[in-house]
């Protein structure tokens, strides 16, 4: 359970739009995206950043992206 209260996925029109793709597919918004529900703008911007920089969006290829992601998260002691 996150440490801040989060609004419902459809609490506002803007939030509804930001979470629409997940609700359409019948799956919950992943925790790391849901935590940004207080700011749908941030949620959209971070999603765009992630797609541009990672998840195959860079020139590195998935192998190197995963290598860097794993190393960074291990060093930062981030379980997620």
């Amino acid at each position: 359970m996150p440490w801040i209260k989060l609004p419902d996925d459809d609490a506002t029109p803007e939030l509804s739009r930001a979470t629409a793709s997940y609700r359409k597919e019948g799956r919950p918004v992943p925790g790391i995206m849901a935590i940004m529900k207080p700011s749908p703008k941030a949620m959209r911007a971070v999603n765009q950043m992630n797609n541009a920089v990672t998840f195959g969006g860079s020139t590195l290829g998935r192998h190197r992206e995963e290598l860097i992601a794993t190393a960074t998260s291990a060093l930062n002691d981030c379980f997620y």
Partner: protein
Amino acid sequence: MIKLVQALDRAGARYTELPLDDGLEVITSAVDAVLDDPDLDGLDDGDRAIVRFVPRLALAPRTMHSGVLHDLTEAGLDDTTVHDVVQVCCCFSYMNRLADGLGVGQTEPNRAWATKLYGEARWEAHLKWKQPAQDG
């Protein structure tokens, strides 16, 4: 990859207990040990240079200078690749802080790989960490 993750996790924890230069030395030694392991395969020279580079940017960006990037270009990475390496590291550093800053934790479906990497005790500690503080 499991050995690398475990080594970086241990070194990262030790890093926080030491003065900056000593902490970086611990991490450098841990990375070298893993990369020198003959059982570690699947990493080319560029990958190895990246693994050596990431700790400095992730933990001690104040120590960055142009010579650090030289190690990446010496390993054959061009400027676009170097840029993308930095971007990916920064992106995940951001996401790490977002998760840890607001209590986003792992969930039960991922228990198997998490305990394989870090053990049951760490998993249990993580579940406790996830819980919001009680009022009063």
